[in-house]
Every structure is written in structure tokens, then in C-alpha cells.
């Protein structure tokens, strides 16, 4: 073998790499060179790097085992800083100039890992050792230690700087896999005029057709692949996506695809495809073999060895042994032989092989041992030799070996079918689980169906495409099947019996651990322990041993695990079945799932229509579903000081509050009053036109869900104010009742919330300010009393003025068209300047309303609050007609006098603050533990009363006015007097002024 001058383990010629384009990269701090066309895995192999990772549990040295997404060992971190991606499979990372990668599970280094103490003491750590060992004093005591030891990869240190995209697509036929079956089906369906999406997870289509020894129409199969993909790219209606893996199939065949970016504009793109039909053409995955110490670096799947040889001209060994239980591994032997790379020994588990294979193996110069197995392997950071065993434990000697190509047969990639709840059956001939019942709209072709041989695969794919055309009522075009000049024998008919004999052969167990899951370090010994302890259902077995639960989801080991479980319990694999394959098929980054919905796009920001004016006023903004000022601190003022100043200004002069987000539902129609009477606890038909009323809404359980003022604008026209956060929910609820329960009522509900801006003028000078703004209505209390409404012109704007108050002061809510909000607010500030008008924010409003004892639904109420609990019981009882939730109020539990009722609380020390959530215990000097008698729901310092106040709910509270309670806030306790919730202006003189 002549090596490549740059790479000691690369042949000087061959491969599908661009030797004119060397690429520099770093791995674990060392500089290496690879070529365009390399993956990180192939480049590392070419450079002689054998130990790439440390295993998850035992910290054993591990190398590269596969050449694809099924890789269980070579998990690395790629990139640096915030762009670092943990748990990348080296086999999938396309080499690029300047690429930086590192091992992730070794300390201090991957070559010398102190964590391997776990390996040397492995009998202490069997399956389930977490559950058994870390029970005392508690799991929480050990968790940090275990997580540190068992962690896989590090979280990147900063926000992900990369961009991710998302695409929605529809098609007639989604083809999963761009191998022989997928390409032919795409060609047939595309020619028939179907809209086709073909997703190929690899860097290029072709699959098995890319193998050097296949000839189609007398030319290399690869040539046909290149022509066909070029043709498909030009075909209208066909979308060819490479580097795109179908990650999940969900209900009604909604499918997600993860596309990896070739360019740097985005790193990954998540597709949501809604196909009418799905063709599964995903091929098969080669399985490993189970034998003692089958995890050393230098042991690789035979198919992977052949791929590295053909694609990247890499041969990662000079002393090569092949171990197999099927025919397919012989292709690796022949590929090596074609390059004059000798294989010393072929170890075949089966008792005999075909005459042809025997002759060709002999011709290559390799020794063939049938009925044999690998009895053990040696080597520390790389494989040095293999010990061979014959039938009945006979010793067949040792062979020098630094590359052991293994094949345990091929398992169809049926994961997506399982996502869609298709069923599988065990096929004894191919020793694998193959598709059985297909879900509606599904076809399967090629190796994914368990089909062997190229001709059968192509026929199956063409037939599937024809059936799809037929079901869509379209004439199918000619399949244009290529003529197969030469196929290779990929028969994977292994025999179960020799394998299970090998697994459990006497003498094998004592010699060393036999891995069934390389990624999660699960050995045959763990499987035996699980069975011994009764975990014999495959789902229990999986969870107890954690086999198949790592990043690779057991793609190269599950089949052996199921067969081992069968052998250990004396059952046929068909009876064992498989575990449940769930999406995603490969790991999907959170970035791809988030797409563009990050940073400022993460959640919708709703701005007040007068946002710019509030910014000018230096409001302190908070997110309340809308971006709203919670107060307007002056320079040098704290938020707390600002709130106190604003509250005092409203009480003494006048304040203006932007209440635009308040819900504004217009309800009209001949039956509007009848309808709303069923919705509100309060009487509706008796409300006069031009008047407003406070109303409570319940759900059918009798629980308060919203409150607000409703105005009768006309006989058949109402304006409903809801809480600003509740308007969507309440609007939808009204629609539901109208459409589903009372379709006979002639009523329309229209959400006008964003059409109108709403400004509240509150305080003793509110009327003067409104007057100064210029209005055409009479503002005297006689003409426009509290809870009256009028259409008016204010400052030249068409508006609705409602006298309603949430502060306890005489106030006017002025609704103007939203587009005029900014100018209108400036007019108010100008007109109010002589009166010292003060803008006040949400936090100040909350203090004002608490002083007045006004309820805030969702703060002072919860999912159990009834009208009686908050003092509206009499109104509810007085109402004669039915309303939503009325019947539930009659339940015994809702009429209990000991229910928690809404009260006010005054601390005995006026300067003592209470916090919402603090528990109340009846009586002074109480201490927990005790059953709670209630809790604080709102609390603040009242600038008006110059003392702390609180609102809360208290067991039988209304009958306990004047009594003392103990307020318990964790270890902090104080005493408070139970009072009426109305701390301010109890006779409403100021309100009605």
C-alpha cells in the first residue's frame, strides 16, 4: 500500500475526494490535514487518530464504528465558543477548512482519562446501580456527582449565534431516502407530473448504487446516479433535498425534515411537510456483532470499512480480520483485495458458506474459518490482536489485528414507519424486523422493506410510484428502469442459532464484557442481570439497562439487544418484539425547532397606540401582555417613590392613565340583552341605554373568570369591557355559547379592542381637564353621573365617554380611535398642565384600586372564587333568570359560610409590609404548622392612608371584621386586623363627585 504523502492511512490514489483541495483542521488541539470530500471521521482515520471519544459510563477508549448517522461512539464537540455543538457525530460532519473539533468525555484527556477508574471497577456498576446505590440519604444528594461523571458534552457558553430557518411544504409524494429505490420512484413519479419531495440524509444521493462494483446500463452505477439527480433537479414539481433527514412522522403523515446548510446563511432548516403519500426508501443499517471486548478502537462495521475505502481511499488498518454472520461482509474483503490490501482471516459464525464465497475468499489469500467466532480482543488505546474460538469453545489461536471489520446483518430503517404506527414483523430469514402492516398512504421499497437485490428493489420502487399515481388518478409514466449489468451479492441471510450460541457460548462470559450498546455502555452481563431481576418485557428491559437510549438510539445495537433478550428468556425474537421508536429519528437541535422565534421574535410585543408619547414621558415599561408603563419615575426618583407621587396626584388633583389594552367587545343584535343576561351574574335587560354596570362572568363551575363594566350603547348594542388579558378568551367563550348552545339567538360579537384607545382622567380636577379639552356634552354629575356613558366629541375626536372608575376617584374613560391616540394623549397633557396633571402607570393604578378595595380578577380571585366569596352573592341570588354557572353556585360546597371570603387586612404596626402569598391563621400569636385559614392576595403601601394595607381571602372572613389574624410569610410573622376591603372613601362621595 502506498500512502498519501499527507495522510499515512490514506491510499495514494482513488476515492471521491478532491486531492487538489487540502483542508486544515484541528482535533483535540492537534493540527491535521484532510481533503474536500472527507468527513471528520474519515479525515481522522486517514491521519491515524484512533481514539476519538471515551465511552459514556466506563470511560473506555472508543474509535469510529460506522460511517453514518448510526454512529454510537464517535461523538465530538464541533466548533468553538457559542457556536460549539456537542454530541456531533464525527461521521456526519463534513470537513471544512479551519474546522475545530474535540473529544468530550475524557478528563484530563481522551488518551488518558481518569474516569476510567469506573472501567477498572466495573463489577461495582451494574445496570440499575443508580437506583440501587444512590438511595441514601437521597438521590438529590448524589445527583450532582453522578451528572458530572455521566454527562455527555457541554452546553455552549453563550446564545447560539447561528441562524435557523423553517419551511412549510406540501407534496403528493414524499420519498424518504435517495438510494436506488428513492431515485427511481422520484423519477417515475416526477415524470407522471406528481409534486415530489425527495429527502436524502447523506451528502449525495445514490446509496448502494454508489458502490464501485455496480454497473447499470454497462456503466458505473454512480454515473446513473449523477445523471438521474441532475435530471430530477431540472424536473418541475420535484424537489431534491440532500443533507436532509426525515426526523419524524406525526399524525395524518405530517412529517418533519431536518436540512443541514451547505452555505453559512443558515445552519439548519426544519421542514414541515404535509405529503399525501410517503414512500419509505431508507435502506438498512448494519448491525454489530457481540463478542468479548467488542468495543476497542479499530473494530468497525464491515460496510463502513468499505465506504471509507471507496469514498475517501482510507484504510484504517494493516492487519485486517473480517468477522461476520452473513454474506455482505465479504464485499468488504473483495474491495480490500482489489486494492491489494490483504485480509488475514475471515471469521464466519455460520457453519458453512457458499462455494463461490469460499473460492473468492481463498483467491484473495485470506483464511476462512466457519463456525468460528471472536473469543476476545486485546489492545489498549487501539486493537492489537483477536483471539479466535471454534465450535464448543475450541481455541483457534490468536491473530495480529488492528482493524476488525464486523457485520451482524442488516436491519431495515423502519423507524419512520413505526412513528406512523405501522407494524413490524420478525423475518427469520434475514434475522431482522421488517415492515408488516403499512399505515394509510404509505409504501415501502428496497432494503427498508427487507428486499434484497437491486432488481427487486428497482421493481418495487417503480411499482410503488405507479400505485401512488393510480390513487391520485393520474396516468403513470414509464419507470425507465436501468438495465443491471452487474449487481453485488448483499445477501444478509444470517442464521440466528449460531449467533445466539455465540452470544451465550460457555466460556465467553468469563473472558470479558460483551457490549450490546456501545453508546450507553450496556453489556450482555447487564442484560442477564435485568432478566434475572425480572425485567423481561422489552420495554422494561430497555429502561432498566438503558440500552438504545443514547444519542444514537441503538441503531447498531438494538437488534442484538432484542435477540439477546430472546436468547436469555428462551423466546423467539418475534415474541420479544421491538421497543417503540419515537421521533426524532436523529437528534434535532433546539435552534432548528425554535427557528426564527428567538430574541425579539420569541414573543409578540404589543405596543400601546400612544407608545411614543409614553417613551417621551420616560415611562418604566413592563410586559403585561402589552408593553405598558408601570410608573413614570422622574430623574433621581425610585419606582416606589414615583408610584407614591402618582397616587397622591390622582387623589389630590388629576391623573391620566392609558387604559387602551382594556378588552372592548361589542355585542349587538335583537337578542343581545337576552344573551348577555345569560352571561353576566348581574342583571342586563334592566340597564338603561346610556348607562354602564359592573358585571362578573362565571364559567359553568360557578367560578369567576372575568369582570368589567358593560355599557348599553343602544337597545340592541352593548360595549363589554373585559380585563386586558382576558378579551381573547372571553370573546371566544361568547362565540362558543352562541354557536354551540344558543344558535337561535340573533347576536354578533365583535372584538374592537385595538380599534379604540382608552384614556382615563381620574381625580378631583378630571372634569375641568376634560372641559378644557373641548367637548360637546354636559359633564355635570347630574347630566353625566357615575356609571353613565355618552357619545361625544372630545378635542375634535369622535369618542365615547364613560364615567367609570377603578381608582375610587371621579373619573372619565375616554375612548378615541386608536390612530389618534398619540396626539390625543398630548392634548390631554397640555389641557391638564394648569391642573398639574400626572400620568400614572399600572403599578399606581394597582395601589389606587387596592385602597378602594376593588377586585382584580386573577390576583384576588383564583380557580375557586365564587361571586359570594367576593361580596356579590346577593346580586347573584337576586337574579331570577339563568346565567352561566348559576346552578353550580347552589352546590353545598359553594354555600358553605366557612368559605374563604374577600377581606381587607391592616397590620397592627402600620409600617409593617405584608407580601401576597403569605398565609393567614385566625387569632393573634399563632404559629405554623397549622391548617391555613387564608392568604394575602394583594398588598401595598397606601400613600393615602400612610400605612401598609392588604387584601386577602379568609375563612368566613366577612363575619370576622375586627378580629386579629397572624400573617405567616415563611419564618416572618406579624399580626393584622381584619377589616372591610374598602379602605378609602367607603361612602363613595369622591367617586360620585
Amino acid at each position: 500500500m502506498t500512502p498519501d504523502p499527507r495522510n499515512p492511512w490514506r491510499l495514494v490514489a482513488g476515492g471521491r475526494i478532491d486531492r487538489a483541495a487540502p483542508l486544515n483542521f484541528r482535533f483535540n488541539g492537534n493540527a491535521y490535514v484532510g481533503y474536500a470530500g472527507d468527513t471528520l471521521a474519515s479525515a481522522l482515520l486517514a491521519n491515524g487518530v484512533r481514539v476519538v471519544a471515551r465511552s459514556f459510563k466506563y470511560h473506555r477508549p472508543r474509535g469510529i464504528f460506522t460511517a453514518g448517522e448510526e454512529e454510537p461512539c464517535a461523538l465530538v464537540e464541533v466548533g468553538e465558543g457559542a457556536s460549539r455543538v456537542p454530541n456531533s457525530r464525527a461521521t456526519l460532519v463534513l470537513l471544512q477548512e479551519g474546522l475545530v473539533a474535540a473529544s468530550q468525555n475524557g478528563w484530563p484527556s481522551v488518551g488518558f482519562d481518569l474516569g476510567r477508574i469506573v472501567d477498572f471497577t466495573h463489577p461495582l456498576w451494574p445496570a440499575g446501580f443508580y437506583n440501587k446505590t444512590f438511595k441514601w440519604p437521597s438521590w438529590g444528594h448524589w445527583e450532582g456527582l453522578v451528572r458530572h461523571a455521566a454527562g455527555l458534552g457541554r452546553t455552549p457558553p453563550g446564545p447560539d449565534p447561528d441562524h435557523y430557518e423553517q419551511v412549510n411544504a406540501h407534496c403528493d409524494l414524499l420519498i424518504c431516502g435517495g438510494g436506488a429505490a428513492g431515485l427511481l420512484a422520484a423519477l417515475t413519479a416526477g415524470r407522471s407530473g406528481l409534486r415530489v419531495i425527495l429527502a436524502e440524509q447523506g451528502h449525495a444521493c445514490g446509496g448502494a448504487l454508489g458502490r464501485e462494483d455496480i454497473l447499470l446500463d454497462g456503466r458505473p452505477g454512480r454515473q446513473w446516479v449523477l445523471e438521474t439527480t441532475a435530471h430530477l433537479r431540472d424536473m418541475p414539481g420535484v424537489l431534491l433535498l440532500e443533507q436532509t433527514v426525515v426526523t419524524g412522522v406525526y399524525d395524518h403523515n405530517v412529517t418533519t425534515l431536518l436540512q443541514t446548510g451547505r452555505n453559512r446563511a443558515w445552519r439548519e432548516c426544519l421542514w414541515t411537510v404535509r405529503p399525501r403519500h410517503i414512500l419509505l426508501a431508507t435502506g438498512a443499517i448494519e448491525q454489530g456483532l457481540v463478542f468479548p471486548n467488542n468495543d476497542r478502537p479499530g473494530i468497525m462495521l464491515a460496510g463502513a470499512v468499505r465506504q471509507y475505502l471507496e469514498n475517501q481511499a482510507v484504510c484504517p488498518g494493516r492487519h485486517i480480520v473480517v468477522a461476520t454472520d452473513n454474506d455482505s461482509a465479504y464485499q468488504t474483503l473483495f474491495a480490500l483485495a482489489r486494492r491489494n490490501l490483504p485480509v488475514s482471516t475471515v471469521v464466519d459464525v455460520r457453519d458453512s458458506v457458499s462455494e463461490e464465497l469460499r473460492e473468492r475468499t481463498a483467491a484473495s489469500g485470506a483464511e476462512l474459518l466457519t463456525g468460528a467466532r471472536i473469543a476476545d480482543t486485546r489492545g489498549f488505546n487501539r486493537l492489537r490482536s483477536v483471539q479466535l474460538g471454534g465450535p464448543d469453545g475450541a481455541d483457534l489461536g490468536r491473530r495480529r489485528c488492528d482493524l476488525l471489520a464486523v457485520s451482524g446483518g442488516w436491519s431495515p430503517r423502519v423507524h419512520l414507519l413505526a412513528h406512523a404506527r405501522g407494524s413490524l414483523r420478525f423475518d427469520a430469514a434475514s434475522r431482522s424486523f421488517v415492515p408488516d402492516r403499512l399505515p394509510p398512504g404509505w409504501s415501502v421499497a428496497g432494503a427498508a422493506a427487507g428486499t434484497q437485490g437491486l432488481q427487486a428493489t428497482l421493481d418495487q420502487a417503480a411499482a410503488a410510484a405507479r400505485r401512488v399515481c393510480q390513487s391520485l388518478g393520474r396516468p403513470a409514466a414509464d419507470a425507465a428502469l436501468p438495465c443491471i449489468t452487474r449487481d453485488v451479492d448483499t445477501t444478509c441471510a444470517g442464521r440466528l442459532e449460531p449467533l445466539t450460541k455465540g452470544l451465550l457460548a460457555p466460556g465467553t462470559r468469563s473472558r470479558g464484557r460483551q457490549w450490546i450498546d456501545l453508546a450507553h455502555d450496556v453489556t450482555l452481563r447487564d442484560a442477564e442481570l435485568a432478566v434475572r431481576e425480572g425485567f423481561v418485557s422489552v420495554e422494561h428491559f430497555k429502561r432498566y439497562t438503558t440500552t438504545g437510549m443514547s444519542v444514537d438510539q441503538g441503531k447498531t445495537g438494538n437488534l442484538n439487544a432484542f435477540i439477546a433478550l430472546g436468547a436469555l428468556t428462551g423466546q423467539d425474537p418475534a415474541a420479544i418484539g421491538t421497543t417503540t421508536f419515537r421521533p426524532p429519528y436523529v437528534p434535532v437541535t433546539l435552534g432548528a425547532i425554535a427557528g426564527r422565534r428567538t430574541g425579539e421574535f420569541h414573543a409578540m410585543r404589543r405596543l400601546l397606540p400612544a407608545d411614543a408619547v409614553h417613551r417621551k414621558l420616560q415611562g418604566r415599561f413592563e410586559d403585561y401582555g402589552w408593553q405598558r408603563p408601570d410608573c413614570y419615575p422622574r430623574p433621581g426618583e425610585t419606582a416606589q417613590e414615583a408610584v407614591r407621587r402618582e397616587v397622591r396626584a390622582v387623589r389630590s388633583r388629576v391623573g391620566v392613565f392609558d387604559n387602551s389594552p382594556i378588552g372592548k367587545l361589542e355585542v349587538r343584535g335583537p337578542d343581545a340583552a337576552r344573551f348577555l343576561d345569560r352571561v353576566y351574574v348581574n342583571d342586563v335587560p334592566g340597564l338603561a341605554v346610556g348607562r354602564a354596570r359592573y358585571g362578573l362572568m362565571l364559567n359553568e363551575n360557578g367560578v369567576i373568570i372575568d369582570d368589567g363594566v358593560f355599557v348599553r350603547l343602544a337597545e340592541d348594542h352593548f360595549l363589554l369591557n373585559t380585563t386586558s388579558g382576558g378579551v381573547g378568551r372571553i370573546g371566544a367563550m361568547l362565540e362558543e355559547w352562541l354557536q354551540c348552545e344558543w344558535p337561535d339567538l340573533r347576536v354578533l360579537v365583535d372584538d374592537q379592542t385595538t380599534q379604540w384607545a382608552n384614556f382615563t382622567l381620574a381625580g378631583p380636577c378630571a372634569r375641568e381637564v376634560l372641559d378644557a379639552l373641548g367637548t360637546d356634552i354636559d359633564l355635570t354629575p347630574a347630566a353625566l353621573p357615575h356609571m353613565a356613558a355618552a357619545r361625544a366629541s372630545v378635542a375634535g375626536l369622535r369618542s365615547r365617554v364613560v364615567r367609570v372608575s377603578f381608582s375610587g376617584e371621579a373619573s372619565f374613560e375616554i375612548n378615541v380611535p386608536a390612530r389618534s391616540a398619540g396626539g390625543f394623549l398630548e392634548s390631554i397633557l397640555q389641557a391638564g398642565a394648569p391642573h398639574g396633571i400626572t400620568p400614572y402607570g399600572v403599578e399606581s393604578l394597582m395601589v389606587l384600586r387596592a385602597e378602594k378595595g376593588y377586585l382584580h380578577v386573577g390576583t384576588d380571585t383564583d380557580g375557586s372564587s365564587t361571586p359570594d366569596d367576593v361580596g356579590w352573592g346577593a346580586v347573584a341570588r337576586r337574579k331570577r333568570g339563568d346565567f352561566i354557572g348559576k346552578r353550580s353556585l347552589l352546590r353545598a360546597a359553594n354555600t358553605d359560610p366557612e368559605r374563604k371570603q374577600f377581606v381587607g387586612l391592616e397590620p397592627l404596626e402600620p409600617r409593617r409590609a405584608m407580601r401576597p402569598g403569605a398565609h393567614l391563621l385566625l387569632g393573634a400569636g399563632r404559629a405554623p404548622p397549622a391548617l391555613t385559614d387564608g392568604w394575602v392576595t394583594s398588598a401595598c403601601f397606601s400613600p393615602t392612608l400612610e400605612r401598609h394595607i392588604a387584601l386577602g381571602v379568609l375563612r368566613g372572613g366577612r363575619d370576622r371584621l375586627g378580629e386579629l389574624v397572624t400573617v405567616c410569610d415563611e419564618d416572618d410573622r406579624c399580626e393584622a386586623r381584619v377589616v372591610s376591603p374598602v379602605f378609602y372613601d367607603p361612602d363613595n362621595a369622591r367617586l360620585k363627585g
Partner: protein
Amino acid sequence: MLRIECPYCGLRDQTEFRFGGEASVRRPARPEQAGDAEWADYLFYRDNVKGTHRERWVHSYGCRRWFTVLRDTVTHEIHSVVGMTPGQDSDRGDAAG
């Protein structure tokens, strides 16, 4: 994710809709005369069908109209979709009070 045929807008993703539970729940015509058991039955008890389920959906992010769907709770296959025209759906309760 289900794909649901809105009777007014056509085939859309489930994310455009909101589920409204069993369609065959009848609100007692005279709630105040209903006994606790009858009221509890209306409020809380549902059939939890394995197989074809009659259920209500609303096209929240579309036409905002409610309709009835017959869906297989095992396979999610949707057998039929019916709009909620007054009089068409026999399970609508009479107007309350």
C-alpha cells in the same frame, strides 16, 4: 399534528384549531331544576370513547366557527366533518332559561 377539514375554509393544520371536547354533551334545559348528579354529569362526565368520537372543534385562527368532527381516537382518522347550522345538529340543547 392532525389535518382537519374545516367545513368553511378547507384542509388546515390542527394548530389553527381549538378542541372543544365531546360534542354530545347536553346542557340541562332548566339548570336550576337539575339535581346535583345530573348537573355533575353535564359538567364533568365524558364518555372517553375508544373508537369513533363525536367532538367539537373551532377554527380559532381562521373563520372562528365551530363544527362537529367524527374522529377515531385510536388512529386519529377523521370520518366526517359537519358544520353547526342551527337545526342541523340534533345534539344542541334548547336555549336556557
